[in-house]
């Protein structure tokens, strides 16, 4: 059963809030992890691991570095 974009966004917002303290409402699709949300590379690894657990999608390291925005992650999860 495929998740909707909204469901994935909500899930990502929850993970980012848990790890960084950024309010989930600020996690919108166009936001860049580094430039807008000020998330460092170690936190990105934490987020990727949590996203794998949440969505059951493996994010290889060489793919992770290409995921610059929240929208990129949603697209990756949707396959």
């Amino acid at each position, binding site marked *: 059963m495929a998740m909707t974009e909204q469901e994935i966004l909500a899930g990502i917002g929850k993970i980012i809030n*848990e*790890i*960084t*303290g950024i309010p989930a409402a600020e996690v919108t699709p166009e936001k860049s992890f580094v430039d807008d949300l000020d998330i460092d590379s*170690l*936190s990105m*690894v*934490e987020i990727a*691991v949590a996203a794998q657990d949440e969505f059951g999608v493996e994010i290889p390291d060489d793919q992770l570095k290409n995921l610059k925005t929240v929208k990129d992650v949603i697209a990756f999860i949707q396959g």
Partner: protein
Amino acid sequence: MSTDQVRVVVTGLGATTPLGGDVASTWSALLAGRSGVRTLTEDWVDSVPVKFAAVAAVDPTEVLPRPEARRLDRAEQLALVAAREAWAHAGIEKVDPERLGVVVGSGIGGITTILSAYDTFKEKGWQRLSPFTVPMLMPNGPAGWIGIEIGARAGVHATVSACATGAESIGYAIEMIRSGRADVVVAGGTEAAIHPLNIGSFAAMRAMSTRNDDPQGASRPWDKGRDGFVLGEGAGIVVLESEEHARARGATIYAVAAGVGYSADAHHIAQPEPTGAGVMLAMRRALANAGLTGEDVKHVNAHATSTPAGDVVETVAIKEVIGGHPLVTATKSMTGHLLGGAGGIESVFTVLALHERTAPGTINVDDLDDGIEVDLVLGAPRELPGGRIAAINNSFGFGGHDVAVAFTTV
């Protein structure tokens, strides 16, 4: 009491201990003679022979924001809580980052992180390890985080000398300022080691009290019935500053950090040297370093851990080097033994004792051991004399480390 060296003063205090989540609550509990020791209720307690500890009164995860707490080892959490209090207390609004340093150590480092990360590794694989595992387990982590927080660029250091760590850190910080390398240094010790492996390991040395039917009576320095130390956790931090820097900004000065003496027993990895020679040398050097005589010293916060071997010989050393006159106290009777954090909180207590002219008492001494010829503060606190007086905080550690830090009133 004169020395031509740069005078170093104490302008900020911070602590989170088994008696309270800050300096004020800890100090009032200490003066009230309360014990911070409690029975442990964790599942693992059945696996170890010691069923109690002096747990931090305020859990640091209740104070720190959750995203911050989850990337810090508990020893780092406690250190940050105490450092923030000390920094706010000092009220430094502006300092050149290249003249600002940190010296904060712990005895064991991020031991609970190491052990839980190893469980994660075995059960779920390396991919599930937190990317913060390394900065959580490294013993210089607390110093590093504090340095980042306050922007310290003069040097961030972490001394490691078991239970002498906190005092050694403060001594190193005094020297950093005296040598001209910094104007302000945040210094102290932290520890968070209440874990069954540590309790089991200390118990294997027969170093811990097993008075399970009376946890609050278990830490009883100098009492004939003492049977080992009580494990505690927490952090104690001081802000040290050159007197010139402190005066220029109109800071409140709580005490002078007058000097430090170091020595080593060169005797046994864990047992105290039986004549107290190393302890005497450290105290003699502290007096010389501070330009003090034994007569100036009116109070000693003793190392006195409640182990059978060390408590009495320390008093013999105090009598020999300082005399029988100072009011000697063992605050570990209330806080338990914070290992690397001990010298941190006990330096905070020593500074407060001078500032408030009050030596805290020692609880649980019902049957005083033989051979003690110094003036112990048993039971209630006692008043310290007026005028310019000095006090010493002793801290000794496995490895044979002996450290004595000397403070004076302003």
